[in-house]
């Protein structure tokens, strides 16, 4: 029996070797997680929480794709001014939902920092450690965030996601490629005292507050070269963090979206408790009508998330109304065929968001790796993603993939996952997009 057990476990020692290499043990079945409040007094739809074995104690452990480093305090909290010490340690991740706290994953020989992660969601939710993206990036992680706070969130650890982009699209998933951010040198000059890190934070292109859309609504026209003119909403660059509950926006991004940021920010309002900074952050709480995460890149020719979203909607409108003579708008056509519609995940409505200062430690932290480049505007948290299921495929090459779907039964206004739609290249071919019937190519409208 001992030999059998050894065989069983050894297969799951995914990263190997000897001599201090990390070793991981998991069973690729859902791990039930608690969720912290999205904000003080808010629903328990926020940061994802497991438990961790520390001696005979089982304090809370944050599972955060937005944290670049993992930590676990070894005793009393060190003074905030002390440079955190790194050590090779183990994390025994226990289910926080099951009162028996069964062992659900083990990360052995990983680099941890001896610091107190502090509060997440509200002041009462104190965590003893963080499993961050430096560990999680070695896997493909599936998350499910039920809209009902009485249901647990789940995380499933896989070694990879063995499905091609085209298969995922055909099977109804919105597949969005992402880049990783967060590479910083050790002993940064930010004054935060944090050690250096490698790129492991998922950053997504997004469109904030786009106009509502219905495929049976009125047509939108768009002539050649006008693709950006007919976009609605504000382009955003957001980090994906399961350690945050609400959406977080820096004040300048909120103002680009047409919002007002009072000064001083957050006076008389609840602060934001973020795992990325030690102290509560003054925040102004607002609602965002809807948010779309959009597949796209940062190339100069890319029209932006909102323009891609608008194009995707126009193409869907055309295909939906094709039998009534609808045609592709000139700005969505190239070489006689329709341009591909980018995949997107649209979430609504009236999403809670915390607006924080551009100079806050949180925003500085998010942009520490790239202070003069494209700035991260904030965070998409788990509360924003309630009602969705997604898998973060870190290990896909050459780029990571975020594969998203909505909970069954979701209505379009609360969650809509739109796979990429690549139209046929000739009239003899057919295609099937947006859950519509298979059909041939639609004509292009005159310019």
């Amino acid at each position, binding site marked *: 029996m001992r030999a059998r057990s050894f065989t069983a476990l050894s297969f799951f020692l995914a990263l190997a070797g000897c001599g201090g290499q990390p070793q991981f043990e998991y069973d690729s079945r859902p791990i039930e997680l608690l969720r912290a409040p999205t904000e003080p007094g808010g629903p328990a739809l926020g940061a994802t929480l497991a438990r961790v074995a520390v001696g005979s104690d089982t304090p809370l452990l944050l599972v955060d794709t937005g944290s670049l480093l993992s930590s676990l305090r070894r005793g009393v909290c060190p003074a905030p001014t002390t440079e955190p010490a790194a050590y090779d340690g183990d994390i025994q991740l226990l289910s926080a939902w099951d009162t028996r706290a069964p062992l659900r994953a083990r990360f052995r020989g990983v680099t941890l920092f001896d610091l107190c992660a502090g509060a997440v969601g509200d002041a009462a939710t104190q965590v003893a450690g963080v499993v961050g993206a430096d560990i999680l990036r070695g896997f493909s992680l599936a998350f499910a965030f039920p809209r009902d706070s009485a249901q647990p969130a789940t995380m499933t650890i896989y070694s*990879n996601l063995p499905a091609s982009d085209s298969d995922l699209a055909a099977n109804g998933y919105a597949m969005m490629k992402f880049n990783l951010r967060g590479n910083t040198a050790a002993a940064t000059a930010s004054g935060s005292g944090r050690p250096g890190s490698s790129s492991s934070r998922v950053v997504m292109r997004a469109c904030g507050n786009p106009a509502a859309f219905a495929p049976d609504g009125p047509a939108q026209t768009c002539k050649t070269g006008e693709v950006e003119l007919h976009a609605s909403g504000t382009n955003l660059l957001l980090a994906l963090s399961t350690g945050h509950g609400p959406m977080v926006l820096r004040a300048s991004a909120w103002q680009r979206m047409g919002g007002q940021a009072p000064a001083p920010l957050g006076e008389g309002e609840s602060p934001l408790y973020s795992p990325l900074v030690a102290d509560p952050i003054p925040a102004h709480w607002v609602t965002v009508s809807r948010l779309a995460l959009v597949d796209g890149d940062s190339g100069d020719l890319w029209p932006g998330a909102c323009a891609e979203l608008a194009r995707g909607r126009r193409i869907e409108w055309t295909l939906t109304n094709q039998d009534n003579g609808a045609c592709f708008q000139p700005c969505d056509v190239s070489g006689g065929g329709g341009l591909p519609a980018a995949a997107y995940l649209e979430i609504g409505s009236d999403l809670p968001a915390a607006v924080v200062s551009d100079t806050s430690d949180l925003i500085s932290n998010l942009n520490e790796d790239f202070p003069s480049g494209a700035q991260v505007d904030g965070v998409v948290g788990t509360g924003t993603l309630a009602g969705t299921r997604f898998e973060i495929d870190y290990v896909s090459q050459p780029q990571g993939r975020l594969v998203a*779907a909505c909970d069954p039964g979701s209505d379009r206004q609360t969650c809509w*996952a739109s796979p990429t739609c690549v139209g046929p290249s000739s009239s003899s071919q057919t295609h099937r997009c947006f859950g519509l019937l298979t059909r041939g190519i639609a004509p292009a409208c005159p310019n």
Partner: protein
Amino acid sequence: MTAALLMGAMPALAGPLDDPHVGGLGFSGPTTGDLTAVYWNPAALGMLQGNQFMFGASLRATRVTVDRAPIDPATGLPGGSRSFPSASGHGFEQPIAWPPGPAGFLAVGAGVARRFALAIATFTPFSQKLSFDVAAGGEQPTRYHLVSIDSRQLALVTGLAIQLSDSLQVGVAPGLLFSYGHLVYDEDTALGGPSATGVENPDAAARYDLATAGTQAPSYFVAGGIHFRRAAWEAGLAYTSAPLGSGGTVKLAMERSQVTYPQTPTPTDLCATLGHSPCVSGEMRYRLPDLFTAGVTWHATRHLDAVGIVRWVRYGSHDQIKIRVVGPSSDVLLGNTLPDQLTLYRGFQDSWDMRARLVHTPVPWFRWSGTLRMETSAVPEANVNAAAVDGLKIEPALATEFALGRHLRVAAGYALTWMFPVTVGTSTFNPAAAAACAQAGSDLSSPACQTRTAGQARPTAAGSYKMLRHTLALMTTVNF
């Protein structure tokens, strides 16, 4: 030289994956100086003179009989009142198929200036084909381990041999391995879950039908060997690697897969709402063995050769088959109620394949051989199940070869492989572990969950297993 060319050894049947008859029946082995050396021992290619072309095919018919032990219908453990009808499995392998079938051999090569030899060959070193019939009363007693399997690894290999001296040759043969797979089995959704249906209830069985879309992007491997001859003796030693660069692992994209839910009240096809099928993607990973081959030929007289061959097939690496499937976005059962990440436990062990052969050449245009082969089991008794049936095997084989003119030779052979019946009393598969693991909250530190993680928390495979295989092989050699 004639004796050397006439030597050879012929295997018969090997472990559950390995084809021991590559290059035909009765005359090939690690000291054989023809194109089959690309597989057996690339160094022996150095004996090739002039140009040669070989093609051949084998027909293999396998019959497996499984008589499961009765089980307790409540726990699934052996020893209860529920009995099963006998299950029969059949496999017929032949090379005329697409993707290319097993048991074929095609090669062309040339000896150059008595110093070098080059060759290119294609064959199937690993394959498994078995399909179980529906038994009386519609029962499928082996369904939780295997309904059917068709696994092929087609090799495309180039061989190079160098004659270092009159008696010593070395050779190397790098190759590509093109894989194809189709696996069908059932999952018992009642195991470990809140179900009132009891274990092994067909109504609670979900079917996993996993298949590649043709052959896959190849993995690569290499073989190398040495050949030595002195007076009436020849010896050869060769090593063939498992797939390189992946720790011996073959990774198959199962792009034409399907998962059918249990009857509630009728089986539900995952793809029904999507309007297209298949709608399940997947991946299967497993390790292939590397192998060592050694052979000795004694040219006892002008007309008689005695040959001994030993192969060490390192099956110990074939411990598990790992599977992940990804269903459509509208589905929430896969990954929750039904596992989307599965481990099929194999737990193989290394096997030894030993053969003794006499080759008699009464006249220059005719020879015949008799081979007796024995192979140890690649599967420990407790691990035997319908998908991995193996035991100690004995195989007598007869082969003959005629020369038709100066350039053409035709060989034919027949082998009968008989496996000593295997009776599995205590199966490594423990259905109670699934329930125990669920009760432990899927705690990885519990022995039951470690059993589940290893793929052993499945319906028991206790019972008796029999296997018989007939192999008929034809091989044509053209020298020009």
